């Protein structure tokens, strides 16, 4: 029996809406590539079930910051991260943290679609298998279908699950990569310019997908397209020369930003 009145439910929902829950907290994050400092004491919190867009000119540090969120920088030689980043309560740079597990919790989608040279089915099944998420074949079939459904790709590929993933179109490959990221039930999905290699139709499909994924995941997206940032995100952070210049509601950011550098950048003016 549901004893809650509709009004009470609304009120609770409202409260939930107004409460700001942070999924990831970045405190004084600096990144060095050898001697070169790429990020300067960035304090940026990522809100739960929100799409946060990172924008800024090339070399501003937005991708570098994105990569600190699931320790992708670990793979770059000479890269050093200082400061503190937490996922929920966990310090992700803690020695105890299992990086493979971290990357299952914080998934990533890259600029260029990079499916494995295997079947569509195997592309999705790989992650759940190594993480032991499926007990049997039926379980795995279910995960594959659900992931492809989530990525809006199921209808297009359900009859050719065992054909190669690389045979799909660019837009389909990118959605396959998103399905692959979703398959391991991540909490956060990082996207590094996920649409820059796609045509406008495929881009629209991925953007629609991002919009839907927001209900279940926290998303951080790096994009060079201001219009894309404006379309898909609720929060936008502007980086410039390794510093976080401004973080604001997307609606405010693109109509009346607080910082002059943001203003100049989004309007395409000389700084």
């Amino acid at each position: 029996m549901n004893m809650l009145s509709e009004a009470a439910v609304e009120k609770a929902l409202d409260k939930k809406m107004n409460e700001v829950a942070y999924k990831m907290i970045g405190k004084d994050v600096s990144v060095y590539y050898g001697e070169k400092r790429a990020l300067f004491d960035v304090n940026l919190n990522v809100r739960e079930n929100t799409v946060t867009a990172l924008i800024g000119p090339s070399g501003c540090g937005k991708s570098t910051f994105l990569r600190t969120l699931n320790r992708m920088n670990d793979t770059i030689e000479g890269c050093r991260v200082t400061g503190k980043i937490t996922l929920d309560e966990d310090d992700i740079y803690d020695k105890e943290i299992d990086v493979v597990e971290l990357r299952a919790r914080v998934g990533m989608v890259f600029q260029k679609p990079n499916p494995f040279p295997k079947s569509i089915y195997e592309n999705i099944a790989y992650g759940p298998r190594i993480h032991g998420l499926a007990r049997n074949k039926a379980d795995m079939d279910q995960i594959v279908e659900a992931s492809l459904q989530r990525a809006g790709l199921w209808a297009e590929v359900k009859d050719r699950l065992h054909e190669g993933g690389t045979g799909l179109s660019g837009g389909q490959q990118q959605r396959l990569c998103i399905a692959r990221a979703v398959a391991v039930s991540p909490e956060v999905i990082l996207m590094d310019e996920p649409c820059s290699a796609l045509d406008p139709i495929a881009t629209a499909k991925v953007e629609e997908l991002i919009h839907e994924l927001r209900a279940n995941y926290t998303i951080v997206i790096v994009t060079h397209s201001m219009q894309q940032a404006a379309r898909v995100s609720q929060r936008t952070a502007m980086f410039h020369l390794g510093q976080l210049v401004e973080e604001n509601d997307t609606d405010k950011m693109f109509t009346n930003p607080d910082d002059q550098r943001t203003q100049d950048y989004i309007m395409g003016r000389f700084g």
Partner: protein
Amino acid sequence: MVSSHILSAYDEELKYLRRRISEMGGLAEQMCGDAVRALVNGDSALAQKVISDDVILDHAEREIQDKAIVTIAKRQPMAADLREIIGTLRIAADLERVGDLGKNTAKRVIAVQGHGVPRKLARGLEHLSDLAAVQLKEVLDVYASRSAEKAEAIRLRDEEIDAMYTSLFRELLTYMMEDPRNITTCTHLLFCAKNIERIGDHATNIAETIYYMTTGAVPEGERPKDDTANTVGAIAD
């Protein structure tokens, strides 16, 4: 200081819109002055000119609108640029309405001509129109300078015009009661006065738009005291 766009053609498009608005403003201002002058002097040739000028003004508004829409589609303007273009559309619409009101006043010249407008009746109207003309002229200056403070000052001054209109209304009523032969002329003059008062309103709209274009915010409520009183009342309940 505003820096230029990386795309110089974009700057040219915005400059074009600004120039066209200034031209529209100049014409609208002139039409209003001409309309009242035609009225008090019974000058039907001048009235005719105002009526034909309105066609030019309507055409200019359409041109600005077309150009603004193309610019939005091509450039996908953001932040201050977006506010600039949306503001341009709104100001063009206000100026077009100002032109209509001038034309409407000019049309009445023919109606009152047979009777003529006695000096004492015309005086109040001239005064009202002077106030509206100053308001319009200053708001167009502010459009060029983009001063948010001045825009707000102009906005607050609309009350003067309203007060002047109310007193003119009473005055015209008095003349009608004094001598029924005044009724035809005074009724026309009442409509003219209303037109002029509304020109002031459009100038105020433009001031608000400029404020928005510059700051990204809507100016604070006109009577903050009243607003506070309302809130206090609500809490007391």
